[in-house]
């Protein structure tokens, strides 16, 4: 069986169906609100300060990116730095690794947190902590950060879901209503799978079939008029609404001109970023793109350089494209991984798991451009400047920028209280 980490970026059919089924159990395959009128105004509590970001694109470097060879270089400590060089960026005094020359041009819109820390050193647990702000427990499934965003920030576009996950097996909405969970997209180029009406069905026949299904359901529905039962018919309604909606075009990146595809790069990740931009234009609040291949226990430097060629092109294209469209002002782009990699280079020229002092890259809406928070010491184990920032605080920082209420309590079925960023406090140093 494939582990979470070694699996390919793209979902296979079985995985897609599993996660889609997870997402729809109870409420909906295609999670969305029922009406065009926003009737949830009373439920939406604004946060402590006005939002400076309305959308988030979260680039998850699954498998743990080597921070020392990407966003967290330390030129003062050559013995841990290895062969990777640092280059100057568009922000004074901020350096990136030579693997990211294009991203360096956008550093004036970006910030780096260099003192990230996590309590977990295994991929699955650490990734869970990054995404939910809570430790993985056997007794409860916590909602992912995207699900919190979807729940707390309200859906503008009522036909398409406000939380989308591109690549990798998504975690769900946890104990929140499953409509807030991520809509999984396996292959960005293929768009939203299984959302088209079959070729051999014309409208009349399709209508006839629906009518027949309703007729057959009628007696059951009248006998068991319950929330869960109604949820199933809502599922059909929502799915059909989306199927007929022109908003499906948001998922179709073939509508983009060829230059755009080239700008982002033809890799899965690049195309995912292009799709993410289309989705944000269509007011999807939270898009996460996962990119694996970072678990570089062997041959770290070559693998990182290869990976960086891909993400550097896609990330810089994304930032440029968003800025030209005036969207960067309200869209926060986050790039991070579940933990970092050892400062010590192992005998196989690789780097191993390292939960101390990895990096998070933030850009765009709400971010104080050109800032670096913290600095690690020469052995890369403790902060030389600044404090350690844990995953909950990173999520709190993003949530704060989005104007979400950090103290809004949601209860699990057993009545335990949970908040969007657990016990995290926003790091104001990197926020505008």
């Amino acid at each position, binding site marked *: 069986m494939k582990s979470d980490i070694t699996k390919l970026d793209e979902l296979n059919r079985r995985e897609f169906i599993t996660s889609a089924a997870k997402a729809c159990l109870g409420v909906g395959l295609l999670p969305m609100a029922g009406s065009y009128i926003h009737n949830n105004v009373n439920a939406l509590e604004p946060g402590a300060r006005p939002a400076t970001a309305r959308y988030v694109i979260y680039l998850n470097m699954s498998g743990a990116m080597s921070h020392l060879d990407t966003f967290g270089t330390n030129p003062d400590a050559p013995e841990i730095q290895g062969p990777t060089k640092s280059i100057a960026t568009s922000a004074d005094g901020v350096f990136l690794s030579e693997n990211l020359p294009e991203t360096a041009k956008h550093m004036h819109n970006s910030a780096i947190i260099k003192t990230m820390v996590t309590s977990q050193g295994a991929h699955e647990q650490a990734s869970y902590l990054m995404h939910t702000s809570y430790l993985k427990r056997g007794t409860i499934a916590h909602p992912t950060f995207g699900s919190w965003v979807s729940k707390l920030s309200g859906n503008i576009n009522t036909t398409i879901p406000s939380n989308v996950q591109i690549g990798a097996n998504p975690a769900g909405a946890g104990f929140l209503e499953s409509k807030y969970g991520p809509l999984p997209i396996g292959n960005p180029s293929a768009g939203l799978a299984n959302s088209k009406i079959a070729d051999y069905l014309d409208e009349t026949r399709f209508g006839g079939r629906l009518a027949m299904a309703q007729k057959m359901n009628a007696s059951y529905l009248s006998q068991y008029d319950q929330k869960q039962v109604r949820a199933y018919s809502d599922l059909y309604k929502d799915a059909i609404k989306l199927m007929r909606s022109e908003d499906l075009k948001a998922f179709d990146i073939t509508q983009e001109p060829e230059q755009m595809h080239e700008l982002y790069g033809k890799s899965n990740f690049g195309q995912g970023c292009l799709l993410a931009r289309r989705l944000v234009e*269509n007011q999807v609040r939270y898009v996460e793109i996962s990119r694996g291949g970072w678990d570089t226990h062997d041959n770290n430097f070559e693998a990182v350089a290869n990976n960086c060629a891909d993400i550097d092109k896609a990330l810089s294209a994304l930032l440029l494209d968003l800025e030209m469209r005036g969207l960067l002002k309200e869209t926060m782009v986050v790039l991070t991984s579940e933990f970092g990699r050892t400062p010590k280079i192992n005998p196989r020229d690789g780097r191993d798991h390292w939960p101390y002092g990895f990096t998070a890259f933030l850009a765009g809406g709400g971010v104080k451009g050109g800032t670096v928070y913290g600095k690690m010491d020469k052995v890369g184990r403790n902060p030389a400047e600044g404090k350690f920032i844990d995953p909950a605080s990173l999520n709190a920082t993003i949530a704060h920028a989005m104007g979400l209420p950090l103290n809004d309590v949601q209860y699990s079925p057993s009545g335990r209280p949970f908040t969007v960023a657990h016990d995290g406090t926003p790091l104001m140093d990197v926020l505008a």
Partner: protein
Amino acid sequence: MAARWFSIVAVLSLLVPQTWALEPLRTFKTASGQAFQGRLVSYEGQTFYIQGKDSKFYPVPFKQLSAEDQKYLIQVAQLGKVPKGDPRSIAKETPSPTPSVEETPKDSGSPNEGVVLRPAPKPKPKLRPGSFFAYKPINLGQDPSLASAAKEVSAIPGPDEPIDFTNHVLPILEDRCFSCHNAPYEKNGRTTHPKAGLRLDTYEWVMKGNLDNTVVEAGNLEDSYLYEVITMDEEDDMFMPPKGGALSPEQIDVIKRWILEGAKPSAGGAGIASDMSNGISFHDHIFPLIEERCLDCHSEPYVKNGRTIHPKAGLRLDTYESIIKGNLDGTIIEKGNAEESTLFAVITLDSDDPEIMPPKGAPLTEDEINMFKQWITEGAKENPSDTFVQPKEVEAEVVTDAANSNLSLIDTLAKRLKAPSRPQMEAAQKSGALVTLLSARHSMVRAEFSSGPNLIKDDAIGALSGIKNNVSHLDLSRTSVTDGVLGEVKKFNNLTWLNLKDTSVTDRGIQNISKMPYLTYLNLVSSKISDKSVETLASIKTLQEVYLWNSDVTENGIKRLRSALPDAKILF
């Protein structure tokens, strides 16, 4: 069981005329074991009025008393030994058995007197004559006679005296708030900052509030956090001051009156509350009066001692909507016709008429009655159309504010406005937009329209007109709006952020927004804007970001725009 007895007794006692004799003094015990001596005077429903030894009346709920006392009370009530009704009002109508009784001073802040017998406020310890502590400190170089004169002014103001911030409010803050909410100071080499980032040491700081929000809204008690925290339940975490007990009712009253009078820096300045030349404003003129005189009985239902107390006559006057709605008998206000309005009729009855409102205290003064009359005649509107602020005035204020503080433009604009009410927000949602407050306790609103094709047309924005001054962010991107929508958008005076990306807006429509006073962000990506709009855009001097990519503006146009708006970020 006991409750059933009472209903019977209550009916009986209505039918049988009684002569009252004094009940004997006895010791009452509460269920929790507290004992006190007193004399049963009257009862109303399940509440018994017991006159304590200090000859004050204490309303005590039946259920709070011990079983023995309950028995006694049932007996007394059954035999009709005591009158029915609140002794404080009975005292006026019928000769009271104890004529020497004083009325309990009614605390307007909290409608429930509660069962717990409040001890009289302790007098401040008298200092021995000549004691060191008896001397008031006088600053060096200050004339001692002037210093004591200044102290006298700062005494509690008379009931009709306008409140002065320096003389009346500041001494209270100094006494009770400064120890935590003062200017930052150095102590043992460390800088101590004011708690919650809130300074209360000068008028400017009090009005500025902290990073969360302002703490004082002139003329509006409900939105004044300062007033909220000093009047909330003492058990509450946010209760202020946290140490040394609550402010005295007189002190709270001073702060209340100061806020209602417009939270002015000095008494007599032209404040909101006194200025009626622009028409009567519900929030500034009518509501403060209603709050003072009517809400004791006509507020929203509340729970007191485990029972829900409903407003008298089923009439609520605590919001504009409920006032207009009236009660089951009908509306109490006929817009435009004071004589036909029940509300106006009951406040203008003869002072000895049993129906007159308010039933307690003096009738409304002639000025107050005239104010009601004028308000109803003007149409009993919530916001008179001519009270919103003239842009010119605002401009001056924004500039000074920005110079004095790090408040952002939006916060400055928000300070001038009242947050939209829930019905207003709900009405705005009907536009199809997601309408949210910018943040908690903020009065500005963000409206984001769904980008679904063919969903949003020009007329959708009409539903936002009720809160048009509150909208600071408007996102119309990817909707089907046309030039027509901008004729409406230009009325959104306080708009700072406008997104028209991917719409069919043209140069003709853009002309409408040339006079928008606070626009800082304008997104015209993929619109039909051409070089003809450059002059219009250049005239909006507040612009900081303009996005024109994929529009019809040429490089030449951009060059002209950049030279007209040198500090703005212009992308194309």
